[in-house]
């Protein structure tokens, strides 16, 4: 029995990022979780296994991450808001079915608590090494949405946002967090249920017999019928026309479909993209950061200002679609951009592309410790000297 009265734990809590993520999912109306244990995302599964039963939802521990995401796609098509949570190795296993979810326009949320890679890497240590995989991990051309939380509060807030975006654009949305944020404990405020903005799926208004499952509205997103509602439609991972019929030879259908799948994100990018601008108005040097390094960056920018360096921060909340315009604007104004990342240089490439001639400095960090504020200040000092 679905019991929504228990879904939102209104109040002030001291929680880890993983737990706040689970609570965010429940507050967003998640009723299905399919997952497989993996460090450092396991706590999300553990929380969901307890809480989903309380609210009358379904928790199932699948045999692997391939099965997890397949079950999540199925649950979404059966009408439930659904999610999975994993880390690098499991995220790799999910890639083929992320493509299926893109192709069949399945709303769902994938949480990736990033650890050190490649391969098994450093399971208990942080990383931001799956940024490009989140964008390009499945084969074929597509666009996807990924958000990067930088606090435990954002693990709650952005998980809700992920569900809202997934339902709005019929696309898999990735919460791309790092191990530090996932395992970090901080204060979280959970508002009353009525103050939480929860987006529901756009349903078809056409009579069942006339319904075309992949015929888009003006926003390029087709209304979504679910199994059991009488529409009796077909969905496939094959290239398909608006009726859902496979079309495996027509270049026209292939072109139209692939372009629309990308354009429904690209053309709505302005509405999707979120970032935080801190002290950028008169800045000479900017830090562009996301996730855990943005916390050190914030500290560094405040300290640098005290030392007379005109520093500012652009904290990216949306990673994909990449906030091209926002980064370009910052680049036009400053002398240099510092990009601290817990990888060997991933999002910095996108920053470089948007920054054009403005110098971009990568501060790479691998392993246990994130960037210290002092390292970022030093990089800024060098950059504007």
């Amino acid at each position, binding site marked *: 029995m679905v019991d929504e009265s228990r879904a939102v734990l209104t109040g*002030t809590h001291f929680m880890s990022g993983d737990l706040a993520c689970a609570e965010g999912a429940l507050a967003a109306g998640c009723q299905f979780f399919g997952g497989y244990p993996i460090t450092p995302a396991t706590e999300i599964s553990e929380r969901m296994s307890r809480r989903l039963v309380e609210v009358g939802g379904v928790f199932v521990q699948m045999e692997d991450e391939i099965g997890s995401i397949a079950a999540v796609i199925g649950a979404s098509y059966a009408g439930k808001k659904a999610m999975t949570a994993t880390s690098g190795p499991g995220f790799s296993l999910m890639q083929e079915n992320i493509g299926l979810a893109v192709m069949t326009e399945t709303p769902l949320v994938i949480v990736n608590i990033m650890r050190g890679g490649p391969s098994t890497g450093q*399971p*208990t*240590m942080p990383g931001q090494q799956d940024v490009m995989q989140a964008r390009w991990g499945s084969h074929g051309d597509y666009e996807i949405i990924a958000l990067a939380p930088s606090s435990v509060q954002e693990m709650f807030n952005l998980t809700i946002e992920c569900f809202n975006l997934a339902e709005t654009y019929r696309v898999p949305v990735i919460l791309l967090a790092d191990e530090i944020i996932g395992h970090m*404990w*901080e204060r979280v405020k959970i508002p009353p249920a009525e103050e939480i903005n929860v987006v529901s799926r756009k349903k078809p208004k056409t009579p069942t017999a006339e319904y075309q499952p992949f015929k888009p509205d003006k926003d390029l997103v087709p209304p979504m019928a679910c199994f059991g509602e009488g529409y009796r439609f077909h969905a496939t991972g094959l290239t398909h026309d608006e009726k859902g019929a496979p079309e495996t030879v027509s270049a026209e259908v292939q072109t139209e479909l692939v372009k629309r799948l990308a354009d429904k994100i690209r053309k709505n990018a302005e509405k999707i993209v979120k970032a935080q601008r801190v002290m950028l108005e008169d800045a000479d040097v900017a830090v562009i950061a996301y996730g855990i390094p943005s916390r*050190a960056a914030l500290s560094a920018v405040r300290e640098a200002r005290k030392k007379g360096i005109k520093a500012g921060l652009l904290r990216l909340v949306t990673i994909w679609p990449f906030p091209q315009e926002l980064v370009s604007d910052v680049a036009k104004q400053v002398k240099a951009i510092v990009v601290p990342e817990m990888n060997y240089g991933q999002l910095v490439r996108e920053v470089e592309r948007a920054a054009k001639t403005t110098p971009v400095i990568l501060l790479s960090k691998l392993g246990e410790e994130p960037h210290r504020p002092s390292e970022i200040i030093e990089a800024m000092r060098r950059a504007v000297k």
Partner: protein
Amino acid sequence: MRMEIRLAGFGGQGIIRSGLILSMAACIYSDKNAVQTQSYGPESRGGSCKSEVVISEGDIDFPKVDDPDIVMLMSQEAYHKYVNTAKKNGTVLVDPHMVQDRNDPPNLKIYDVPATKIAKDIGKVIVANVVMLGALTAITKIVTPEALKNAVLRNIPKGSEDLNTAAFEQGYAYGSELVRKQGKTEP
């Protein structure tokens, strides 16, 4: 004011739980902000283990410990690795029974708290971390004893309240005694 605390030992000693208790005492039972982060290896028991807590009246931007005001060390490995990370004139608590090979650096206020032995005498080694937290509260006054006790009670299994309260009290008494002998250290 921002205070940084580093707690280190090995897996199974309740190091990460200690960090949670301390940060909860600050965040839930005092009117402060707190962040706890942690670092551990693949072992559930025996591997090296570290928990870091930042406590502040204001917002906490950088959540990690950079230059710790307080360091609590419960294993030989932790001692070697972290005793020198404490800031100048910082406070260091060491469990002397777990750390025999000592080379205490100067310019630190070092307090020996035999938490593991005290815990054993009470009945269970497993509460050594709570003994240590009791001493830490008495020595550093970073949170009130009431706040810490409340946080302890919230973080332990039902039925172990008496044991943990005793552990806290004894640790707190031991810490107070040390302060009387060695001089206190206000945050």
